[in-house]
């Protein structure tokens, strides 16, 4: 059979992806918005619904960043509620491994798996900054290397807990004594319908990739172009054998956007308009300040890039993942701006988007299929720019074409997320 692709719906979180000024943009917090997107995704037979996480409001120049959509519910609670209004859709929560404890989180995830009949997934992230830590008992204490050893031990411990009931349904005492956790007792939840909730990893360093290869079922990545995707795909898949795993045991799913039009030209025009609205003049300056680490409010967004150097020790921006060495990024931006004669805002528009599939439904379906058959991805996490109707068109117009091409399911083959992903139930250890 042709390689099948997997699809997930990202509920727009806190980012300038969402064009909140669009009249079709509704609440990012009312439950009805979550129901709308989840039902759309289920109508489109998507594998899962995905929620990101941020545990502290972002700051810019010492004040709360106020330009983008902000304010969101707690993921596991929303997903438990969504389990009531969906039947097949996987329900994936991003939950930090640094500011949680294995016993409690394993219990909450196992509860979601029971309450949804086997549809829970956990995206393990590892924020580490003292900034986020200020909201927690733990504080901000983990350096870069330690947060992955903690995350890996966290997942391993959760798996021990998920395995701890006997097949006849009684709790069996567990004891885990490791570098980060020393815990013992009895778990309160029987083995869940999926055995273990599906584990997703998002993070791109060597440590992150190794962590994914050793333990994750899905990798959420930003590598969206065909070439970068193929390189990432080959690298991560090649790491699996070391852990006794097969390439198909780990699905690679980049986060991407889709813009549809009746003609390719119309879609391109729409996409350019969306990018302009995502990067307002104010947002362009903020994006620049995030790289430069300096107050650049005096600069004209329609003028040229600043000729001063970035401040590498800047504390200007808080709560965002850094995108690389600021000098390298600044140099790249300058070169681009000079070569193409771009203003600040145009440069930000040109450099900041993620991979986009832009075109008619047919050309988008072809490109998605090409990415998957060429091993640049196993599927996609679609990030809409509108809440909550941003995937309506995709489901109505692209999904049927993917089905016609034989690369996407025409019905759910089983009830659990693992069954959608073609992943086996984990073998019970111990």
């Amino acid at each position: 059979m042709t390689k099948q692709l997997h699809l997930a719906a990202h509920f727009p979180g806190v980012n300038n992806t969402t064009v909140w000024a669009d009249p079709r943009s509704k609440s990012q917090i009312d439950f009805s918005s979550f129901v709308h997107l989840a039902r759309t995704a289920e109508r489109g037979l998507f594998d899962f619904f995905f929620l990101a996480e941020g545990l502290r409001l972002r700051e810019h120049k010492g004040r709360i960043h106020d330009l983008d959509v902000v304010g969101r519910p707690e993921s596991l609670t929303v997903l438990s509620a969504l389990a009531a209004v969906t039947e097949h859709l996987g329900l994936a929560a991003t939950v930090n491994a640094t500011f949680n404890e294995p016993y409690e989180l394993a219990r909450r995830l196992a509860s979601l798996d029971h309450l949804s009949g086997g549809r829970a997934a956990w995206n393990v992230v590892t924020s580490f900054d003292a900034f986020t830590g200020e909201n927690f008992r733990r504080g901000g204490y983990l350096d870069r290397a330690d947060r992955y050893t903690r995350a890996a031990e966290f997942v391993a411990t959760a798996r021990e807990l998920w395995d701890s009931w006997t097949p006849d349904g009684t709790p069996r005492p567990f004891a885990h004594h490791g570098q980060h956790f020393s815990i013992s007792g009895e778990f309160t939840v029987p083995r869940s319908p999926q055995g273990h909730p599906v584990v997703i990893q998002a993070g791109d360093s060597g440590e992150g990739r190794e962590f994914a290869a050793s333990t994750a079922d899905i990798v959420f990545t930003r590598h969206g172009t065909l070439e970068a995707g193929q390189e990432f795909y080959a690298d991560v898949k090649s790491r699996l054998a070391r852990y006794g795993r097969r390439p198909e045991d780990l699905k690679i799913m980049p986060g991407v956007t889709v813009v549809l039009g009746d003609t390719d030209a119309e879609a391109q025009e729409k996409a350019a308009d969306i990018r302009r609205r995502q990067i307002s003049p104010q947002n362009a300056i903020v994006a620049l300040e995030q790289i430069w680490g300096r107050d650049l409010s005096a600069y004209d967004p329609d003028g040229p890039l600043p000729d001063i150097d970035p401040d590498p020790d800047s504390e200007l921006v808080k709560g965002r993942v850094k995108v690389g060495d600021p000098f390298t990024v600044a140099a790249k931006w300058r070169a681009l701006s000079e070569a193409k004669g771009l203003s600040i805002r145009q440069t930000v528009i040109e450099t900041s988007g993620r991979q986009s599939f832009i075109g008619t439904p047919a050309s988008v379906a072809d490109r998605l299929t090409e990415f998957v058959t060429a091993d640049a991805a196993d599927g996609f996490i679609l990030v809409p720019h509108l809440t909550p109707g941003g995937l309506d068109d995709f489901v109505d117009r692209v999904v049927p074409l993917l089905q016609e091409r034989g690369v996407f399911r025409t019905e759910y083959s089983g009830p659990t997320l693992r069954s959608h992903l073609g992943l086996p139930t984990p073998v019970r250890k111990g």
Partner: protein
Amino acid sequence: MPATRPLHLAADIGGPPHYEARHYTALARLAERGTLDFVTLGDSFARPGLDALAVLARVAPATERIGLVPTVTTTHTEPFHVSSAVATLDWVSRGRAGWSPEVSTTEAEAALFGRRPAAPLADLWHEAREVADVAAKLWDSWEDGAEIRDEPTGRFIDRDKLHYVDFEGRTFSVRGPAIVPRPPQGHPVTVIDASAPEPRAAAVRHADVALVRAEDPAAARALREELRDRARAHGRDPERLRVLVSLPVELHTTADAVALAGLIGDWYEQGAAEGFQLRPAEPERDLALLVDGTVPVLQHRGLLRRFYPGATLREHLGLARPVNQYAHAGSPS
């Protein structure tokens, strides 16, 4: 108590653990058919069972009016996560959430987390009070109307309506603001079992609903007076505290259900409390008899309403939406 005041009824839907949503959904719907104010679901890290808050979040879209009050432990959990989860239960239920703070007292529970040893009850409840305090601050850390979507200036929120809580407790600190906007009820309803002295000290400061256990109406009335006096002493309006007698029930026949209605009516008319939280021995059996036997008798006597006049749990309880503690402080964030 003036007789015109509505009687409040709640039921616990715990009992032996179940691991399927269907079971709890059916019980909550049954309680809703009886127009009860809310259901409670106990929880602990120490015995088999699903996370109670997750269960009631799962129940929320399958019900329309009934209040949903899970037990939430404050000892080994993160106050920031706890406040976010309770606020989210309020969002997904459109204003029907409550929470019942509890503590974990045993070494066995401490060993599940491995972070600190078990502590004396007084310390744990001191911490639970701090958690209730910081939760309320976090719920207020977004003023109503903080989301402005102001196109001309490009601002999605008015950051002057967002507040750092800068809470320093004995065992934790929280900077804030919340990541969840202020929930529909302002503050979800805080329900505290005030039977023992330590949680009682928390109830008189933080509870919207205090549960008491008593042998007879006179004892219940005395407890109610004590709670109201102490709430007043903490600068609270005692009219904003609902005291419910927590009663274990075991119903086998319709005659039992009618007898229960008689007892509830008598206690209520003697001013024992504003209502009752019933704790069925077998929720499926007892709740059905309660809804089809006890409730109609109380309605017939004019003590219990026949429909929900409002939509939120606060409305069922006749409790106002709390004023935001930051809204008039005038201090920009």
